[in-house]
């Protein structure tokens, strides 16, 4: 092997403390080195030309450059060598600047170290192999998980760019929490009025395949090439036949047994139902846990009244698989259950607020339903217990948020704003009513947000009290709210008719399970983790999987929409090329020596190790060995270190390459 060595002075940067000509001279005597020279600026055009010239004239097989950190100019030198006909992976960099000249003062010591570093690189390059970048085809299709506003936005953006989208929603209808809201801050425009057209657009878009009442079951593959298995839960209604006339729901004899999820339990719904009138798709599902037919085998009322014969009691869950190139996770949030002992929760709850015990203590989403024109009270401000107009209403912020002892240490971000909105909506409907807000701090960062809160205080005369509430109890139909006004330094007691708790936004319960399915990470609260908090906020550590909306952290609507678009843009960047290029630094198995213990599989963080059967010509199983999926392998080499028989090696960082460096240590 003919090796060429090039020592860069980097102007004075290396040359000042390292005697570069001496290094070059020393390198010339290393076995295998046929060319050695030093130059002022190796990375400059003339410098690069020196390398190219030497390659051509001396027919070099490999090149070692002593220069700055490989993180700086490795690419530059590789490219230069490639253009002169050497494989770019036959180039090694010795870091003479950051790791030598800049950190030492003694010229003799620094020069000696520089020679050692050059020797390491020369010994290593002898074991380098020519490698080609890996090219992986891209399936230009996207999967969006979650049909809330963030998922809708992402799906529409991708579809409008001309690529297909599969949108999976676990509920019978898309729309998410935004469809439940009455008005939105800070403009007070009607939530459904701005959302519904988007939902319809999704439904009618030729590039969007909407799978409602479905959940992601299994994901395999890697960036550009995911294979996703989706469970389509049995609706008991044939989607293609149903016209959405609603007669089944109207005639269903079960009217009281089930609480409406859409109305947050404030109203009832039949066993066969669409969540809300504007649902998309407008196809009902049967809730088998309450349906008389499924419980007793009798009734079939819906089946009798359906003119299209769309009811199918025998329907089973089915599975579909979809090939996609990117996945956008937009699974949203839920509200913290603040009952005394929340089920399956390690959190303590707020027993002292009596949520779940007193009918007139409700959470923010329940208030939205009461305020909403499509809600259980048709928009009239009536309290749940006796359907009277509450004359005194108390809002409590930060219930579960910013409270490490009983909830979570994070700020739910949107509660300050929606509480101001709630108070305003209340005052607009009950002019003689009194509204009180207990707050810790008002956090209204956002365009027109602070002005909005001021409006609530100044124009609508909402009473803001800075302090916490210690206890709520019911006495003679009134809720006695005991709190503290920390500014006045006095205890406060308010006899309220209705109390609204701004409970914390929390991650979906199934989030960790989905994270495991997708192989992405999540934080201690169950929120999905981004790849970098500043620079890669919508990407995850798994290539091709992006985040949108409140599944990442508490978000309001404009942020969720922006994040949906950002995730869509990230997918579209991926779809911009036909092939993905990757560094060829991946693990490779020697099937002849692999004993099939699969410890490599256990340590692989990317599920890149598969089982491969080796059969003889007659098809008899010879052995089962590990096999690296080159699309998934990220090149960490943990498998290599774990393998007892060293049958799996990381190309580019093979044992012989590293050993060559360690052996060169003997001459240090």
């Amino acid at each position: 092997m003919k090796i060429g060595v090039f020592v860069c002075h980097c102007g004075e940067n290396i040359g000042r403390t390292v005697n570069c000509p001496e290094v070059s001279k020393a390198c010339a005597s290393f076995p295998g080195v046929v060319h050695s020279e030093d130059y002022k600026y190796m990375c400059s055009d003339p410098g690069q030309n020196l390398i190219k010239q030497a390659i051509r004239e001396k027919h070099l097989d490999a090149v070692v450059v002593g220069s700055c950190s490989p993180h700086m100019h490795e690419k530059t030198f590789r490219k230069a060598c490639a253009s002169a006909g050497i494989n770019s992976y036959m180039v090694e960099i010795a870091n003479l600047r950051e790791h030598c000249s800049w950190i030492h003062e003694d010229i003799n010591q620094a020069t000696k170290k520089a020679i050692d570093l050059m020797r390491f690189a020369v010994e290593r390059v002898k074991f380098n192999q020519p490698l080609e970048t890996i090219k992986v085809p891209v399936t230009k299709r996207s999967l969006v998980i979650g049909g809330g506003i963030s998922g809708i936005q992402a799906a529409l953006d991708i579809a409008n760019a001309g690529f297909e989208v599969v949108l999976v929603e676990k509920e019978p209808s898309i729309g998410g929490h935004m469809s439940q809201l009455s008005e939105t801050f800070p403009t007070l425009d009607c939530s459904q009025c701005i959302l519904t057209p988007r939902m319809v657009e999704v439904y009618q878009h030729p590039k969007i395949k909407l799978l409602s009442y479905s959940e992601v079951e299994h994901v395999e593959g890697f960036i550009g090439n995911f294979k996703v298995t989706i469970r389509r839960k049995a609706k008991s209604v044939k989607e293609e036949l149903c016209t959405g006339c609603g007669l089944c729901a109207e005639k269903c004899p079960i009217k009281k047994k089930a609480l409406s999820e859409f109305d947050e339990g404030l109203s009832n719904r039949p066993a066969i139902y669409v969540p809300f009138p504007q649902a998309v798709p407008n196809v009902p599902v049967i809730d088998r846990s309450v349906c008389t037919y499924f419980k007793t085998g009798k009734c079939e009322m819906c089946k009798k009244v359906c003119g299209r014969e769309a009811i199918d009691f025998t329907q089973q869950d089915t599975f579909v698989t979809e090939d996609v190139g990117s996945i956008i996770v937009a699974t949203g949030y839920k509200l913290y259950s603040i009952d005394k002992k929340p089920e399956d929760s390690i959190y303590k709850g707020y027993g002292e607020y009596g949520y779940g015990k007193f009918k007139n203590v409700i959470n923010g989403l329940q208030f939205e339903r009461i305020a909403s024109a499509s809600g259980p009270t048709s928009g009239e401000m009536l309290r749940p217990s006796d359907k009277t107009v509450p004359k005194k209403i108390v809002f409590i912020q930060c219930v579960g948020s910013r409270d490490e002892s009983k909830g979570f240490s994070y700020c739910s971000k949107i509660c300050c704003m929606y509480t101001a909105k709630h108070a305003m909506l209340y005052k607009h409907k009950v002019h003689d009513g009194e509204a009180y807000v207990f707050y810790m701090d008002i956090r209204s960062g956002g365009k027109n947000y602070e002005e909005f809160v001021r409006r609530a205080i100044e124009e609508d005369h909402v009473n803001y009290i800075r302090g916490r509430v210690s206890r709520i109890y019911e006495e003679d139909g009134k809720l006695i709210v005991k709190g503290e006004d920390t500014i006045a330094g006095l205890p406060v007691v308010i006899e309220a008719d209705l109390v609204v708790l701004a409970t914390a936004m929390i991650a979906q319960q199934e989030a960790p399970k989905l994270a495991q399915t997708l192989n992405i990470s999540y934080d201690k609260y169950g929120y999905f983790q981004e790849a970098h908090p500043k620079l890669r906020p919508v990407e995850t550590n798994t290539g091709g999987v992006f985040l949108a909306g409140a599944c990442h952290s508490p978000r309001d609507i404009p942020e969720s929409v922006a994040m949906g678009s950002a995730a869509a843009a990230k997918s579209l960047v991926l779809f911009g090329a036909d092939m993905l290029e990757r560094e060829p630094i991946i693990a490779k198995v020697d099937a002849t020596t692999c004993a099939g213990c699969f410890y490599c599989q256990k340590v692989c963080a990317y599920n890149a190790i598969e089982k491969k059967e080796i059969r003889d010509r007659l098809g008899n199983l010879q052995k089962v060995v590990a096999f690296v999926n080159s699309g998934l392998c990220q090149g960490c080499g943990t498998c290599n270190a774990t393998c007892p028989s060293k049958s799996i090696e990381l190309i580019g960082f093979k044992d012989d390459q590293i050993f060559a460096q360690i052996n060169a240590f003997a001459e240090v």
Partner: protein
Amino acid sequence: MEEKFEPKIAAFVCNWCTYTGADLAGTSRLKQEANARLIRVPCTGRIDPVFIIKAFENGADGVLISGCHPGDCHYNAGNFHARRRWILFKNLLDFIGIDSSRLYFSWVSASEGKKWVDIVDGVIDAVRAKGPFKQYKKMNKEIEIPVAAEEGVSVK
């Protein structure tokens, strides 16, 4: 023996955190002693304990291993697997009698240039104080004697 002993330190560092942290130390011109030689690996997960033995066999007086802080691994969990291996390996070396003060581990992130300098200088000082790794070097020496030694017995 040389009059003034200068230890040889082999350092195995991960590409993403410690190598970059060492780059930062360079960019910040943080002066340090010149006894350590870095060997770059993609991840601490790649470091086989045999590397450490090989380094001693090749005359290292001390070995330093460094990577990303737990939870920051570029490859999600490589350093967690590495840490578990180190615990076992360290205990094994202890039991066999390889002085554990010749083997150092640290977490140095890409932003901890200063910490890296402190660690390198600290290790060099500590190993310098201990003197050359005679015990291991003795083993290495034996191999250099031809098998047909004068007594006619194979080398032990």
